[in-house]
C-alpha cells in the first residue's frame, strides 16, 4: 500500500488528526450536554435569568451545537481554549505554565522505565528459570499489581524515614531562588542558565515521582521484552547466526535486542494513556504542580473550558507519543522500512 516510509508516516498523521477530531467531538458533547447550562454554572445560582441569557449569548451558547463545535475547534487550533473559571485567565496561559512540569516528569519516567525494564527483560530471558528470572517476575508482578497511589505513598514514607534529606514534595528547593526560565523544563532551564545546582536539585526532586510513575510500566515492559526475546531466539536468522558461531554478546545486542525492542515500544505507545492518568495521582501525592494537578483541580471545580482543554491536551500527548513510537519502529524494523506501513 504505502511504498515509502514517509507515505506511511503521513498516513499515520492523517489518522491521528481524525482521532483528535473524534476526541474533540466526544469531550465537547459531554461537557456541553451533560452538566446543564455552562452559563448558569459560571454565574452561580444567584444570577438572574437575564444575566444568564446575556452570558449565554456572549459565549455563543444560543447557537446550534454544531456551529458551537466548529467555532470551538477553530479557536482551539489557534490555542484559544477560552477562559478558566477558576484561575480567571485564558486556559492556554495556565497550560503553558503547567505542561512542561508534567512533560519533564513523564519523559523522565519513560526513560527510567526503559533503562530498568529492557535490560531486566533481556537478562531474565537470557537466564530463564534462574533466580534472576524469579526476581524479574516478582518485580513485574509487583509493578502491575500495586496501585500507583499506594506505591507513591510508600516511597515517600520510606525515603522520608531513611533519607531525611531527600525531597519528597515539589519540583525544586525554593531556597535556590530559581524560577523556571524560557522552556519551563527545570533541567533545560537550569542548564541554559549554567545553574548546575538547580539541575542537581531538580533531578533529586524528580527521582521519586518519576520512579513511582514508572513502576507500572517497568512491570509490563520487563514482561514483554522477556517474552519477545524468548520468541525471537527461535527465529531462523538467529539460529543461523548461532550456527555460524557468532558470539552470543553480538547476537543479543546487535540482532535480538533490536528485534525485541518493537513489542515494548508498541506497548509503550498504548500505555502512554495510562501513564498520563497515573500522573494525576503521582502529581497530587508529590505536590508536583503540573498539568495533571491543574486538570484534577479543573475537574473538581467543574471548570468546563479547562476540563475540555485538559482532555484534549492529554489526547494530544497520547497521539504524539504514538507517532514517535511509530517513527521509531519504522526506523528499527527493516521489514517495515522496505514495505512501508503494515
Amino acid at each position, binding site marked *: 500500500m504505502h511504498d515509502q516510509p514517509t507515505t506511511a508516516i503521513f498516513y499515520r498523521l492523517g489518522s491521528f488528526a481524525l482521532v483528535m477530531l473524534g476526541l474533540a467531538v466526544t469531550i465537547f458533547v459531554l461537557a456541553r450536554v451533560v452538566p446543564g447550562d455552562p452559563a448558569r454554572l459560571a454565574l452561580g445560582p444567584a444570577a438572574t435569568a437575564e444575566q444568564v441569557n446575556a452570558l449565554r449569548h456572549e459565549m455563543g451558547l444560543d447557537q446550534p451545537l454544531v456551529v458551537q463545535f466548529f467555532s470551538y475547534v477553530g479557536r482551539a487550533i489557534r490555542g484559544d481554549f477560552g477562559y478558566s473559571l477558576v484561575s480567571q485567565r485564558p486556559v492556554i496561559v495556565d497550560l503553558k505554565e503547567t505542561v512542561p512540569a508534567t512533560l519533564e516528569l513523564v519523559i523522565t519516567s519513560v526513560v527510567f522505565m526503559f533503562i530498568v525494564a529492557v535490560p531486566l527483560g533481556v537478562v531474565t530471558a537470557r537466564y530463564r528459570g534462574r533466580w534472576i528470572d524469579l526476581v524479574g517476575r516478582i518485580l513485574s508482578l509487583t509493578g502491575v499489581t500495586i496501585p500507583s*497511589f499506594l506505591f507513591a505513598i510508600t516511597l515517600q514514607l520510606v525515603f522520608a524515614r531513611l533519607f531525611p534529606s531527600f525531597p519528597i514534595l515539589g519540583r525544586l528547593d525554593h531556597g535556590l531562588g530559581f524560577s523556571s526560565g524560557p522552556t519551563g523544563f527545570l533541567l533545560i532551564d537550569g542548564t541554559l542558565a549554567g545553574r548546575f545546582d538547580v539541575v542537581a536539585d531538580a533531578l533529586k526532586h524528580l527521582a521519586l515521582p518519576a520512579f513511582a510513575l514508572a513502576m507500572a510500566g517497568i512491570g509490563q515492559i520487563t514482561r514483554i521484552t522477556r517474552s519477545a526475546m524468548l520468541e525471537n531466539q527461535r527465529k531462523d536468522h538467529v539460529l543461523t547466526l548461532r550456527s555460524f558461531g557468532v558470539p552470543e554478546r553480538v547476537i543479543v545486542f546487535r540482532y535480538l535486542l533490536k528485534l525485541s525492542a518493537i513489542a515494548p515500544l508498541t506497548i509503550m505507545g498504548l500505555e502512554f494513556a495510562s501513564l498520563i*492518568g497515573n500522573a494525576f495521582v503521582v502529581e497530587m501525592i508529590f505536590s508536583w504542580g503540573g498539568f495533571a494537578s491543574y486538570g484534577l483541580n479543573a475537574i473538581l471545580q467543574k471548570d468546563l473550558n479547562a476540563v475540555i482543554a485538559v482532555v484534549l491536551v492529554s489526547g494530544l500527548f497520547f497521539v504524539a507519543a504514538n507517532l514517535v513510537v511509530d517513527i521509531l519502529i519504522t526506523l528499527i524494523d527493516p521489514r517495515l522500512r522496505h514495505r512501508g506501513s503494515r
Partner: protein
Amino acid sequence: MAELQMLDPNEHAVSGRYRLWWRFSRNASAVAGSVIILSVVILAVFAPWLTPHPKDAGMVVDFLHRHQPPSAEHWFGTDKVGRDIFSRTVFGLRISLLLVVGVLGISVPSGAVLGLCAGYFGGWTERIIGGLTNIMLAMPPLVMALAISNLLEPNLFNAMLSITILWWTWHARLVYNVSKSIATEDYVEAARLSGAGPAHILFREILPNCVPVISVKTTLDAAFVILFGATLSFLGFGVQPPTPDLGTMVADARQYLPEYWWEVVCPGAAILYVTLGFNLLGDGLRDMFDVGS
C-alpha cells in the same frame, strides 16, 4: 513430566474438559490465583456474617476506640472514628468486586460483539468500528473517567459507567484481530456455503476461537478495573463515604501516616491481594491456552 507423556497418547480418549482441568491443576500460578480470588469472593459475598463488626461498614462512630492498633478484637485496627478496619476492608472488597462485575459484564460482551462484526463483515462496519475504537483508545482512561464521573456526579454507578464506556475498546480490538484472521478460514467459508446465517457464523464458528484471548484479557482486566476504581476513589471521584471503599480508606488514612500506618497498609494490602490473585490467574491462563502477550 513422565506422567504427562504417559497421558499424551491417549489424549483423544480424555474429554477436552478433563484435559483443561489437568492443565489447570498443573499450573501453580493459575491455582494460586484461583484460591486467592475464591477466598475474596467468599469473604465479599458473606461479608455481613464473616466480619466481626458488620455495622462498622456504615456511619458508626466510636471515638473512644479510634486509631487503635491491630489487636485480637480489631485485626486490622480501627480508623479515625473508631470503626473496625477489617470489617470495612471486607466490605470494600465487596465494592471492588461489584465494580469488576458491572464493568466487565457490560464491556466485555459488547466489545466482543463489535470486534466480531468488524472482523467478519469488513468494509464500512470495519472502518466505523475501527475508527471508534481508535478514538476511544486515545482517551487517557483515568482522565476521561474523572471528567465523566464528575460531570455527572461522583458515585459508584457513575464510576462504573465511566469505566465501562472506555473499557470495551480493548476487547473489541482483541476480538477483531482474531475474528479478522479467522473470517477467511475454510470452515467458516464452509459454514457460509451450507447456508449458515451471520449470527451462527459469528457466535458458533468464530467466537469459540476468541475464548482463550478473551478469558486471559478479562482476568487481567479485573485487576486493572479494581486498581482503576481504587484510584478514582482515592482521588475522591468514585464511591462516596460512608460506603467503605479501599481507595477512599487509603486516602482518608494518608494524613495519619506514619503513626497510624495500619489504616493505610491494611486496605492497601487488600487491594494488592485481589489484584495479585487476578494477575496470577491471568498469567496461568495465558500459559494454559498458550496465548501470546
